[in-house]
């Protein structure tokens, strides 16, 4: 199939790609760029492990065409924090024991970031967190410690570093 040029902005960096028009963003991230922090499972937007941010909003990268991301800003888990400078959500997930096998966690954290950024300054209730994150399946944790981690991170938003507070 004929490939065409596409520039994508991922985690603030520009990537010049040659893609086939039907490729998903997930395929481009994992297959073309080797950015495997974004995970792959059901490929039909049911499990949520492939969630990334598109212009700050959580999207399932498995059903999003890469072409649809032209001129927009993509943030993946690799762009959130690194081992020396964890994003407060990442730190909270570790502290609260919210991570087990970890395969759903990048998607879960990206969804949580989008949710908290949307309602800046608001500390969500448990029910609000459960509704907002219900699109990502986790089979290990029973979700409880994930809910606790998200609420704890939201409570401390005022003390987040400036970089993390930006969406």
């Amino acid at each position, binding site marked *: 199939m004929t490939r065409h040029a596409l520039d994508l902005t991922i985690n603030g960096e520009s990537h010049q790609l040659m893609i086939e028009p039907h490729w998903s963003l997930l395929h481009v991230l994992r297959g073309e760029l080797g950015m495997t*922090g974004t995970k792959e499972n059901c490929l039909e937007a049911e*499990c949520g492990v492939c969630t990334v941010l598109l212009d700050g909003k959580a999207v399932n990268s498995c059903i999003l065409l890469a072409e649809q991301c032209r001129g927009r800003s993509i943030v*993946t888990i690799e762009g959130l924090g690194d081992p020396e400078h*964890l994003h407060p959500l990442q730190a909270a997930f*570790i502290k609260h024991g919210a991570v087990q096998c970890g395969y759903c966690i990048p998607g879960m954290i990206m969804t949580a970031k989008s949710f908290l950024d949307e309602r800046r300054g608001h500390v969500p209730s448990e029910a609000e967190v459960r509704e907002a994150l219900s699109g990502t399946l986790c089979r290990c*944790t*029973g979700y409880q410690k994930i809910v606790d981690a998200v609420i704890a991170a939201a409570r401390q938003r005022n003390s987040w570093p400036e970089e993390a507070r930006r969406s």
Partner: protein
Amino acid sequence: MSSLERRVAGKRLNRIDGIGKVTGKHVYAADFALPGMLFGKILRSGEAHARIARLDVAKALALPGVRSVLTAQDIPQIRFGTAIKDRTMFAEGEVRFRGEAIAAVAATSLEIAEAAVRTIEIEYEPLPAVFDPEEALLTGAPLVHAGWNDYQALPVFDREGNISGRSAIGGGDVEAGFARSYRVYEHRFTTQHVHPGYTEPRAAVASWDGNGDVIVWTNTQLPFDMKNMLAEVLDLPASKIRVIVPGIGGGFGGKLRVGVEHYAAWLARKSRRPVRVITTSEEELTDAYPRQPTVVTLKTGVSRDGLLLARQGRVILDCGAFANSGPATAAIALQVLAGPYRTPHLAFEGLAVYTNKGATGSFRAPAGPMANFAVESQIDLIADDLGIDPLEIRLRNIYREGDTGPAGETLASVSIEECLTKAAAAIGWSERKPGEGRGKGLACSWWLTTGGSSGVYVRINPDGTVTLISGAVELGSGAITGAAQILAEELGVDLTDINVTDVDTHSSPYDYGAQGSRTAFSVGNACIAAATDLRRQIFELVATQWNVPAASLRLENKSVVGGDKRMSLADVASLSQRMGGGLISHGTSIQPMPVFDPNRVKHHPLPAWTSHSFHAHAVDLSVDSITGEVSINRYVVAQDVGYAINPTYIEGQIEGGVAQGIGQTLSEEIVYEDGRVLNANLTDYKMPTMMDMPRVECILIEKPSVNGPYGAKGVGEPPCIEPPAAIANAIAVASGVRVQSLPITAEKIALRMNGGR
């Protein structure tokens, strides 16, 4: 020694692999890729039982980008299997379930491989099929394996026709017991296929090296078992197989056995290129290792005051087209049926039965939820009939310290009374029906800590860090963090000083594998052994240097101390590198088998349980009087963990296990119709989401085991055992409807509330 006196063990410390996992840097098998790698795809049967009349792969081979196509004609058809060698890599002449592999393609892209598979031409001649395990037992039923008698099998199993394994456990005289009973109850319960639901699909990348060894990167729970299975299927010595496990995204018993690895290895051999094979959700729900459906019948005789006098029961377990762990699972069901109750006269039988459906496996606590659903539902039915409180009837019958178990073994560290009373108190048992449409239920059980041996190598490095090399995989439970906490405790270092390597069967010591709630237990014990030997090495080396007796030395604050002298562990490790080849030890562990009475068990691969745990669950729920929808208000688990190595991750095991149990109870089922899966996608296979889960309140009870590290017992599997029965019992109180088949969907409840059946 209580946890208060320990520095590292017993503490809520962060897991050692957490940072890699939250930053996306942890590499899972599904993330692993090699340069020049091809993509494999499998052609699967569209018939449940048929002869393959014609198979033509010419068009697939001709497709640009296709590098190899394999069918049964191209490779030696070697039969393999856990209990019975009844399966081949590709259906040979005959397919036995809809979804069985017939051919495989490797191509330069997954899309080309998929397109190639679609061009393969196949014609079937249908054969009579059997889908219901009870029908499969009837005389004249179609045989799933006409040649069953020629298969190799473990000698312990008793097989015949569609029965892939029959086992029994019991003693006394049940007929005499029933004759003396005040009342005798007979009930029947059924359970469904449930998928383990790991979020990372099964994935493998295979590559052949210059020595003719095949390296397989895979997310298996049992790398050493995988090595042996691959050696069989590839017809090579096991030393030519190297299995490496990068990260693994959940397993729950569904990643124990060969799944995609053999296809990757054979396609790579044929293509002379690395090949990756990864499953789709559809493949997961049609050809994986889900929990077996069961039919359980129980006949129970009791005295007027509710004492169990005689129990007879039968578990029919539908293992699908291949036996895999079915015969062992049917056998383990018998201990779950027996315990945790004293019964003088006992006769249980388990049958694993072939049908023309997908194979099944060892999903977390194999047989646990199915058998417990039957026993604990029936106990409530009996309690209600006799007018005895369900908690009280349990307390009258439970095992006590020193009792005799189902196989005649002596039971130690029995904590079931404490589990029951604490769970009941926490849920507010005195008010069992707090309002209209609301009710509370209880269930309890016991479970084993699986044995098998573990080896670890532990090395102290010249920078003072410690490397733990284990053959056990970190599934996600935190078990390896737990083992590392024990190691840190024993060596007097911090958890953050310990590094753990990936499992590589060419270099890691043997481990029986991440299964059976054994990892923290067995690897923890091996770590204690390794640390003991390292302390000896350290003290002997320093004693020579300082010219003092080794017995006068001790470890303190990451240093060896003797009199007024002190040497850091880092310096001891450096010294050892210069003079003694470095500080390294090999620690091993094996759990002793208990003494049991062989006359009480027949054809049973696990006749007596070791380091058993006890647990009780209590739930408070509401049932919508119109829709039948169940909402869980509170859920309490009291579990005896022996010793809580890291309470945070133990709670994580309990919360996650309950979530799986709630899924099995209320919503999950792989639905078959005439051998076809109707819901092979994650939209229609309904696992609990964050909105479906209540908070789970955990009560950790620590009654030490004799064999576990610091008294620990196996933790991981038990939490998914009791939810079906506890919830069914609460639904009966809340709605007056007793459902004896899983899943207990809102539809089933609503229909029954409105007088249907």
